[in-house]
């Protein structure tokens, strides 16, 4: 029992619980609290990330049951935040699923009064919060769970989480595509040298959907099942997203549907921005082993805590079967200069991103690349349209 408690009460667990609780209140109270939530997401996270230092502990010893409780709490929170936001989008006395009436009767908390006072800028800010929360927590857990291909519960929960950002097919492409083709031109989700995040987001998004379609229809053909059936996980994934849109329709009609897709697609862009920084400029010979050096690793404490160790990307790609609490820090892997929560914003300013990352990519060429990769580097540099790379002769030396 004592071991159980001491595993529950760690700084990491307490910080996450406090955060979960505060977001629960901010997103439920709505109105002006959306401003506070947006401030925390946009500023406080990045600030803490900068001062939080590194966490270079390996395998922080969390027992699987506890770490899984954490992971499986997230989906409930994601659905609750979406539901409450949809509720506030409604008008007058409309009461989606009777939530408002239930809370008023049993707790005295009057959502109707809050809705009557809520302004359009508050709702827009709330939509921003919801999008970033869905992208930052929902899809991170969706990603974690859809890697557990051996567990039906994990796959289904994970796909519902990824459907929040309109792309449950990420579960197919990521596991059966990206993890194999990483760093090669065949991978839509590896950012090319010289490519800006704004070019990457649409290319990666549509490239992954097309790739997922090919993988899924190939599987159906081998199983002798029709593409036009419910066996097709492309369709079931889109249906999940439509189900969420349906809830927003019930809450606020077509206006609700439009707002849902605006939030969902914004969240998808946020997710792709994370994809962008994870492998920027890295090359790999197709068919060779994916090694820790093929990802930009990051051990920034706050990023790792908030994103369920996703920043420990080197280990994740080298061993895709490891659950997040078993990921090690790999201090010798190519390292991102800041935490994920900072790098996302840097990526949004392409000149700044280039200034920070290009020297690191060139350093990667010298220190991490193997000779078989040199021709790929020369080719990637040539295609980059960027002086930083074109004028670089490191691989030839």
């Amino acid at each position, binding site marked *: 029992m004592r071991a159980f408690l001491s595993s529950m009460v760690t700084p990491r667990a307490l910080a996450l619980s406090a955060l979960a609780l505060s977001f629960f209140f901010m997103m439920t109270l709505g109105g002006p609290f959306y401003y506070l939530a947006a401030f925390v997401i946009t500023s406080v996270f990045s600030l803490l990330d900068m001062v939080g230092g590194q966490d270079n502990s390996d395998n922080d010893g969390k027992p699987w049951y506890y770490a899984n409780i954490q992971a499986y709490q997230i989906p409930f929170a994601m659905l609750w935040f979406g539901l409450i936001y949809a509720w506030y989008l409604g008008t007058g006395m409309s009461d989606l699923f009777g939530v408002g009436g239930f809370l008023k009767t049993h707790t005295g908390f009057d959502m109707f009064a809050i809705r009557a006072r809520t302004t359009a800028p508050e709702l827009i800010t709330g939509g921003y919060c919801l999008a970033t929360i869905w992208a930052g927590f929902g899809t991170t857990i969706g990603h974690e769970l859809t*890697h557990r*291909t*051996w567990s039906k519960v994990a796959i289904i929960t994970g796909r519902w989480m990824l459907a929040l950002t309109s792309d449950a097919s990420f579960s*197919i492409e990521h*596991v*059966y595509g990206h*993890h*194999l083709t990483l760093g090669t031109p065949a991978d839509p989700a590896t950012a090319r040298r010289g490519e800006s995040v704004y070019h990457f987001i649409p290319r990666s998004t549509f490239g992954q959907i097309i790739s997922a379609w090919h*993988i899924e229809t*190939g*599987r159906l053909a*081998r*199983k002798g099942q029709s593409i036009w059936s419910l066996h097709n996980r492309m369709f079931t994934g889109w249906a999940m997203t439509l189900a969420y849109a349906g809830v927003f329709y019930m809450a606020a009609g077509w206006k609700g549907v439009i707002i849902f897709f605006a939030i969902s697609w914004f969240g998808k862009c946020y997710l792709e921005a994370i994809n962008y920084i994870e492998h920027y400029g890295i090359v790999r010979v197709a068919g060779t*082993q*994916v090694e820790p050096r093929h990802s930009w690793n990051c051990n920034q404490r706050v990023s790792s805590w908030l994103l369920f160790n996703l920043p420990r990307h080197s280990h994740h790609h080298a*061993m*895709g*079967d490891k659950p997040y609490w078993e990921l090690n820090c790999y201090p010798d892997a190519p390292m991102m200069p800041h935490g994920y929560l900072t790098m996302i914003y840097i990526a949004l300013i392409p000149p700044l991103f280039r200034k920070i990352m290009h020297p690191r990519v060139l350093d990667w060429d010298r220190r991490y690349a193997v000779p078989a990769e040199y021709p790929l580097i020369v080719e990637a540099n040539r295609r980059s349209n960027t002086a930083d790379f074109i004028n670089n002769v490191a691989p030839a030396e």
Partner: protein
Amino acid sequence: MFSKIFGSATKPATVTILPADISFIVEPKKTVLLSALDQNIKYPHYCRVGSCGTCKSKLISGQVRELTDKSYTLSNEDIQAGYILACQSVPKTDLVLEVPKLRVE
């Protein structure tokens, strides 16, 4: 009882690899690939999650429980010829597998 519900063995299984004629023990609920790697056997592999097909092995005898849908990865001919993915297969009985690329050093 549990083995009936989950379809996996409750005692260790012996896996024999041909043509190298190597045998190793797989503990209950563990996959063929991870057990081999734990025992320093250089089983051909790459992704560990059933997506690349590098560890595909021909099942000569015995039964396995498969953790994932191998039709994402293996071709029709492979599946009909009885290939399995070592990284996604938990032995239900003792196994004999054919893995030409696995050699004794």
